[in-house]
């Protein structure tokens, strides 16, 4: 049974991460390779909050999401100043710098040893979330909440402006919109959502280290998004389900773990190529990468 809960929790986490990436990538077409950095910052801040303060789940989550949001200013600034591949490169640089800081700033992050013994988050100051099934419920609820918010975002006038930025940035600004402000908010929301996935992850596994938040993880998150498809909630859920369940299927097929790990990556890589070439909308997306 725990195995099933584990799958559900991970699908919840990756749904949130894919939705978070969907805001800049799917709506505004800003290909951000720094999503794992937000996820990581969120997870480390959560560990810090859970270890040091005795605050309940929702306020804790909120604080972590907002704080991580401020880190996103570095990326939105880059998206304002830099065009096309220069922005992509800057986001990549940010991702690598964050990893390097998590890995090397041992005084604060404990570096490669990671942070262990993270206490479980508490709901309303008295219910400790320890059992996996509680986490599964939490994960599903948070994913549902994020989906709900995302759904309204896409439909909203705000989402409409993001989509028009994707189409033609100059025309948006000469229609009286401050494009910078929209990009800043988009990344802020993206970082905040990613951070809440980080919170779930840190609370669930109780031990985090920098290797969960590498460039590969950013690519992994984007794979979920592209395989599922851009621009809507459905695509993110499908994508998250695929990337979480697939490795388990490989394990069921009786492949040894080390081979299964490589094989899994090969399948994601192939999927990315095939999606780009033949199915630009992924399995269930509304739009495609431009």
């Amino acid at each position, binding site marked *: 049974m725990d195995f099933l809960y584990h799958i559900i929790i991970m699908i919840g986490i990756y749904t949130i991460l894919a939705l978070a990436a969907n805001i800049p990538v799917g709506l505004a077409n800003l290909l951000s390779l720094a999503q794992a950095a937000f996820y990581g910052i969120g997870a480390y801040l959560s560990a810090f909050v859970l270890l040091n303060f005795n605050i309940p789940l929702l306020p804790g989550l909120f604080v972590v999401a907002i704080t991580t949001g401020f880190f996103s200013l570095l990326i939105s600034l880059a998206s304002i100043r*830099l065009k096309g591949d220069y922005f992509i490169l800057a986001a990549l*640089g940010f991702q690598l710098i964050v990893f390097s800081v998590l890995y090397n700033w041992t005084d604060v992050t404990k570096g490669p040893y990671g942070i262990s013994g993270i206490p479980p988050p508490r709901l309303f100051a008295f219910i400790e979330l320890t059992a996996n099934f509680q986490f599964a419920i939490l994960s599903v609820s948070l994913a549902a909440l994020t989906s709900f918010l995302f759904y309204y975002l896409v439909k909203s006038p705000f989402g409409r402006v993001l989509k028009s930025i994707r189409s033609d940035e100059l025309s948006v600004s000469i229609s009286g919109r401050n494009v910078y402000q929209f990009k800043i908010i988009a990344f802020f929301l993206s970082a905040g959502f990613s951070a809440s996935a980080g919170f779930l992850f840190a609370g669930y596994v109780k031990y985090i280290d920098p290797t969960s938040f590498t460039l590969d993880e950013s690519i992994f998150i984007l794979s979920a998004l592209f395989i599922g498809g851009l621009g809507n909630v459905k695509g993110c859920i499908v994508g998250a389900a695929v990337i979480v369940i697939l490795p388990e299927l490989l394990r069921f097929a009786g492949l040894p773990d080390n081979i299964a790990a*490589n094989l899994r990556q090969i399948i994601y*890589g*192939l999927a990315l190529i095939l999606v*780009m*070439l033949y199915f*630009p909308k992924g399995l269930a997306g509304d739009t*495609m990468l431009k």
Partner: protein
Amino acid sequence: MFLQFIINGLITGMLYTLASLGYALVYNTTRIFHLALAVLYVVAAYIFWHVTVVCGFPMFAGIFASVCFTALLSLAIDRLVYFPLFKLKASLSVVLVSSIGVFTVLTNLVALTWGNEFKAFGSDISRIYSSGNLIVTGKQLFQFIASLVLIITFFLFLNRSKTGLRIKAVRDDSELYQVLGFSLTKMRVTVFLLSGAMISLASCLTAWDIGMDPYVGMPILLNAIVALIIGGAGRFESCVIGGITLGILQALVVWQWSAQWQEAITFVVLIIFLFLRPQGFIGEKSRVV
């Protein structure tokens, strides 16, 4: 001590230059954000290792095999992935994502074939040359001479040969190039073959000294890209200026602080350049609107 670090940095910088030229060949002419080059670097090292260490051929045969194989693989990536996307008029972001896909697939194929663990070339203790406090190993000396010869040859080729001039013409204006009746398709073949060869040479020279695992490619490629950007994207001389600057800068970081901050500093430099001088040391400002 200072001079020792400068020398080490210079040699590393020249190896970056080679990798950077491999990247620039593709980027300057097609604007492809060619991240899959990272895995070509890895494949090149493993072919070299396999041919020399496993099969026991001499070093030059290994390098030759590696260059040929990598160049062909580079071409295959273009034919199978980039070129079809180009025909579909795919955007640069789409090509980049597919490039990440290629990178992921091939990296894991390498890991499946040769394993995840670190591999080194024989433990023959190479000669050491020293004068005063300065030490240069035989391998380093070889790296220095070989990359110097390669860089000079590359620029002679670029500036003197017909193909080289055509590469520069495509870089300046690929549409005009086609309008004048040249084939961009043929040019892509040349460019990808050369890029593969260049990255393979950079890889063999480096791996022979410090060994490899399936994941060494990406950091090197990122250094190569950073070198091109800080030199000034769009030109080939940038690779030399940027590569050597970066090599020496990293050596100084190691000297002053520690090796672990090398990567972070590299990217801080990159971001500073992107924001303050996106045209690099020698690039020109481009028309914004």
